[in-house]
């Protein structure tokens, strides 16, 4: 066992060192030259959330009828923000770091991972801000909260899969950046994030009966799980309380695993050529 740990350590120590260096630098440079500096990483989501809270909860009065809905909304949006931030930065990471990849040999998946880790840090801070909102909204936390870390792991896995895939393709086809931007919007509106799932079931017309299928999308499944487990176990529909068939329940998980495997496979196969192609 010890032997195994040691071998893993040896194998990944270089990658770990590079990752730490890159993430630290990115974080240092993010608010470079601003007066408030790192404080922005908390201030910005706080201010954005205030805006969203006012727009969605007070003006548009979007609600599923529960007082916790605004917090649920924030949680959903910030989870999706993690996905978009890491894919949008990660997509270009291989090309943007081309200067490094052409000059030194290091495990080059690290540039993609460092982009997603950067987004993960922002996500962590956002989650803390959401928690503050949740406490103010008198949310009653349950033991389901213990599932949240597992949900976040799944979210990270799914996001990393998409990011690796996009980053690989972007090296060869720059069009991917445009395509992904459109696709991203499509995925966003095909998930019950800014609207409650109930809304589609009630106003969806002929498609109403298919509304539940939105939950088969891994991102929808994960974000709903996080909302369910962290804030509102009674009201949030998840794949686990909407479907009883395990074959259906496992679809998003299997999709995530498959995507991760495929993306790692493709990235590894192509990454040797990155330095030459760019």
């Amino acid at each position: 066992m010890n032997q195994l740990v040691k071998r893993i350590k040896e194998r990944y120590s270089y990658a770990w060192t590079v990752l730490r260096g890159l993430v630290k630098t990115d974080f240092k440079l993010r608010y470079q030259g601003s007066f408030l500096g790192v404080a922005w990483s908390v201030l910005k989501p706080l201010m954005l959330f205030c805006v969203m809270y006012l727009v969605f909860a007070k003006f548009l009065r979007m609600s599923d009828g529960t007082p916790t809905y605004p917090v649920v909304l924030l949680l959903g949006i910030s989870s999706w923000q993690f996905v978009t931030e890491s894919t949008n930065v990660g997509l270009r990471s291989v090309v943007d770091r081309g200067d490094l990849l052409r000059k030194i040999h290091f495990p080059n998946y690290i540039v993609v991972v460092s982009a997603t880790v950067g987004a993960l840090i922002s996500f962590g801070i956002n989650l803390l801000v959401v928690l503050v909102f949740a406490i103010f909204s008198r949310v009653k936390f349950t033991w389901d909260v213990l599932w949240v870390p597992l949900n976040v792991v799944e979210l990270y896995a799914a996001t990393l899969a998409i990011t690796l895939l996009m980053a690989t393709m972007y090296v060869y086809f720059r069009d991917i950046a445009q395509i992904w931007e459109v696709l991203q919007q499509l995925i966003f509106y095909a998930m019950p994030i800014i609207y409650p799932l109930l809304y589609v079931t009630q106003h969806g017309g002929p498609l109403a009966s298919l509304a539940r299928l939105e939950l088969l999308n891994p991102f929808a499944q994960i974000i709903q799980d996080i909302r369910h487990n962290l804030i509102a176990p009674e009201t949030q529909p998840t794949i686990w309380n909407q479907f009883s068939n395990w074959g259906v329940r496992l679809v998003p998980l299997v999709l995530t695993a498959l995507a991760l495997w495929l993306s790692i496979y493709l990235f590894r196969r192509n990454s040797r050529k990155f330095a030459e192609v760019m």
Partner: protein
Amino acid sequence: MTYQQDERMTVRRNFEDAPVVLSVDHISKSFKLPTEQATGLKQAVINWTKGIKGFRRLDVLKDISFEVHQGEFFGIVGRNGGGKSTLLKLISQIYYPETGQISVTGKLVPFIELGVGFNPELTGRENVYLNGALLGFTHEQVDGMYDDIVEFAELQDFMDQKLKNYSSGMQVRLAFSVAIKAQGDILVLDEVLAVGDEAFQRKCDDFFTEIKKDPTKTVILVTHDMNSVKRYCSRALMIADGEVEAAGDPETVSQQYTLANLAVQRAEEKQRREARGGYANGLNERCPILRTSAVSSQVCSGEEPFVFDVEYQYDEPGDFYLAIALHDTRRGGITYDTGAKVFRVRQHGHHTIRFSLPLDAFNNGEFRLITSLRTPMANDPRGTDAVGVALDENSCSFAIRNDRNDEYALLSDRALVMTPVDDSLIETVHYEAANIEDSAAEHAVERAGGIASGRTDERTDGIA
């Protein structure tokens, strides 16, 4: 001198016994170069319908094999575009070979370019740590090297300044210090010697001499500078057109490299000559032939006068003159000149004239005779115009080699002796012949090295 040679030989023999740390085994590499500039969908469809491939294959390296042993200082030389950098990138595992195997034992630290990942918005200190991290050194490991790096770069007072506030020289110094103070087992350096001011260059020089002695550190150096190859390398490899052209001891390899460069120069000269309508550099239709050629041996003892011929062709009416200048190619300057209007030629047409030049006054050296054919100026009775000059292959080079001679100064003691007017405080000492020869050789080698690498040492300082 023989002792030194012996020592070097034993050092070399030891490398053979040392374990192989880098083995390059029959590797080949080619690149696809797109032939069309446009790479969009439109061009792809057009190419596809026309059956055009859209790229051509360029073989950069063909079946290269060599081994580097632990502790060696291994030089890779070659002309631009010969595949050196590709080889270096293959060694550094940035590219992957198409066929063949490269195996590395130990930690290889590549410096294809200095200051990779340097960020202008970070401080010098942060950049050192980032650069270290990219090379695979943990924070603690960089801590251990940090003081050395800063001291070597001479930037103690600037480490907390942002890199964008550094001068470019300071940036390069910092990058170079990280490069050579990084505690890797194999150091790969690409053309990085020519940085910094004289003092810094000397430090680098010391460092290379030092690392050469360390049996655990292996250095692979890619360079154009033959002097650094001769000075530091234990073995060298020359690459031309993707193949190993020469491998082995640095003297031989650098000679081959020089020869290859000369061949290219000659080809270029030929091209220029064709562009000029067949006339050699310096000649023209008025004076189609002007050549200085040795009659005596081109390596001479200096005890006999040097005899050479000047062949000319000039058919225009009126007086004309031959002027011959003796250039000292090693020390520089013009040693002697006949004067422009001294040798009036009696006959027009195509003739050859023999001259003799006594060399007794000179020490060892390399000289060149350059002849020009001149006509008097119409408005200035003293001035002349050069009609033709015998340059390049039409000039005549020769060298004086004699044990009785010194290397350093141009004039020998036979020609000139300086004496103290009052010898109460001066005792004139005459060294043994062998001693003189040794120190003279040293002078010559150091001077040649200093000039070529842009480095000036105390002795040349004194002269300047």
